[in-house]
């Protein structure tokens, strides 16, 4: 036994907290991806189904059966703006459902987070790891969903990729999503977790500028400004700026600061929430 053969108060054998945290962080990532790997088919099916159905019905089926969709701009315009919304929604939903429900279960039902809480690292590192691993899952989900938005619609989709915006905004959206999930996961108990969908995810999504652009809400100014509390709005608008040609969107001067603020706020809330749940 390492420590018991050491002298009475020999603490030189302990590693620095920084070094121990870094190895623990990587090991926890490895654990998360081992589990993701085991559940890959379920993860992909769960990620793909909702956007696939949405895109298929709204942008493939509707135009073909002549059902009016997309307002004045026509079906092509709608398919294009929805494409950005779907990517944003997928990212946020993976945050809420993958990270959030997993945390609810681990904290409330099984307590299985304990082994990681007792790893030789501060609790915020455990939270940071969850955010990074959840963020990577969200990124992976976005990449899976992207082709759906681009190729499933029956009408042309007008894409115009702005790489710098895409490459900076995606990580911000992924971190926000995972941190939001962690925050929700720490706040909701197993008994209330079923509200995550109805009370959190549904309004976020329908009021998340996914099926419409934020500027187009000019006609309903009160709602337009109310929507600005929804982080999903900035993600959708940001992806619109990054991916879609010729569609007015919320200025990037608003999108970036808002995304940074939500990433930071939810990261802090998530870290604090986890700490409150596991320490007393």
């Amino acid at each position, binding site marked *: *036994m*390492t*420590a*018991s*053969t*050491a*002298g*009475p*108060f*020999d*603490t030189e054998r*302990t*590693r620095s*907290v920084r*070094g*121990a*945290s870094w*190895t*623990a962080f*990587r*090991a*926890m990532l*490895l*654990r998360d991806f*081992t*589990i993701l790997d*085991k559940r890959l088919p379920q993860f992909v099916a769960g990620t793909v189904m909702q956007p696939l159905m949405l895109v298929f019905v709204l942008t493939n089926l509707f135009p073909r059966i002549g059902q009016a969709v997309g307002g004045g701009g026509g079906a092509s315009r709608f398919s294009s703006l929805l494409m950005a919304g779907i990517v944003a929604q997928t990212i946020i939903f993976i945050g809420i459902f993958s990270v959030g429900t997993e945390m609810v279960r681990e904290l409330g039902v*099984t*307590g*299985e*987070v*304990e*082994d*990681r*809480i*007792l*790893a*030789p*690292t*501060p609790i915020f590192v455990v939270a940071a790891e969850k955010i990074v691993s959840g963020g990577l899952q969200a990124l992976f989900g976005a990449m899976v969903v992207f082709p759906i938005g681009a190729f499933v619609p029956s009408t042309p989709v007008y894409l115009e990729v702005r790489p710098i915006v895409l490459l900076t905004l995606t990580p911000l959206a992924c971190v926000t999503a995972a941190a939001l999930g962690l925050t929700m996961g720490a706040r909701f108990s197993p008994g209330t977790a079923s509200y995550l969908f109805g009370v959190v995810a549904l309004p976020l999504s329908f009021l998340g500028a996914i099926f419409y652009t934020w500027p187009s809400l000019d006609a309903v100014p009160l709602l337009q400004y109310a929507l600005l509390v929804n982080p999903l709005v900035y993600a959708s608008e940001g992806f619109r700026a990054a991916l879609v040609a010729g569609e007015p969107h919320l200025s990037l001067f608003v999108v970036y600061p808002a995304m940074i603020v939500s990433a930071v706020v939810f990261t802090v809330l998530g870290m604090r929430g986890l700490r409150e749940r*596991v*320490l*007393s």
Partner: protein
Amino acid sequence: MFLVPRLQQTPGWLSRPDISILRPRMHSLPPANISRPGGTVTLASEGESAGNGATPHPGAADVISTTALKKVYPGGMVAVDELSLSVRRGEIFGLLGPNGAGKSTTVGMLTTRVIPTSGSAVVNGIDVVAEPARAKQVIGVVSQANTLDQGLNVWENLYFHGRYFGMSAQASRAATNDLLERFRLADKKTAEVEALSGGMARRLMVARALLHQPAVIFLDEPTVGLDPQSRIALWEVLGELQDEGQTVLVTTHRMEEADEHCDRLAIMDHGRIKAVDTPAGLKARLGGGASVTVRADGEIEKLASQLRRAVFTTEVQVVDGHVRISLPQAEGAMQLVLAAAQAGRFRLTDLAVSCDNLETVFVKLTGKDLRE
């Protein structure tokens, strides 16, 4: 089948020259059931906590020491009150107490999960409150609930634990395989943890807590919910670990287990320590008596008064047609009663002597009121 085999050879993960799980035990223990004359018990008076009693490991350094450790939960519940406690290297230390006594809270504070309101706790020389992240390197924890990682199988539960604690892939793999062998779980390697029986799950949790070779392992009521075989097997494991020099702190409700397996015990109630000593020492000081039950033909009341005169105690009662006597010590109890009966020409039909056990001591210290 539950016997844990001794390691035949030092496995790779233990073969660093300064590390050996097989080194001889540090000090030999006196037989547990012999009350040693030197055994002293420290009784805590109200308002002050007890120090330590006799130790089977004289001179061994403290692995755990707390000073005036206190936890007041939000809402004002004082769960642990000014607790001062030392646990020495290499001992199995038992924390006993009724429900709500503050055992889990104490373990929680020592394992960084509960933040003390005041006081200090040092584990292996590391201040748990000031440096929780570093303290976690030297502790292993087996909590009462099954907290195995459900997403991982049996093997992976151990392997990833090793990785969390900074072991290399190779070292963690080797340690995992060794411990699975040792804890008779090797054939469950690829099983999901949901599929394990309660006993196997508990063994896996103990293995997990040991994997990173902590200075001390904490077990909170480890035998609750286990069948007798699994309980025996678990205590065997703990005994073997102790032979190898492992320090163990265990909480339990089960007096007979504590009596048999712990080197020293602290009896806690209402967040305070009532007494700390070896089981034998506790019984010698606080128990050590016996109760004798006598049945006889003839007038039972006469026998009672005869006995009262003979044993110089008023603790002689007639209950349901027999006489019950409480004596301060078990030694010679039977002779005393027999002599008194013979002198009064009573024909005894039944005579039973039962010695005070740890339960008697426990109830003496903590009262008979129901808790919680």
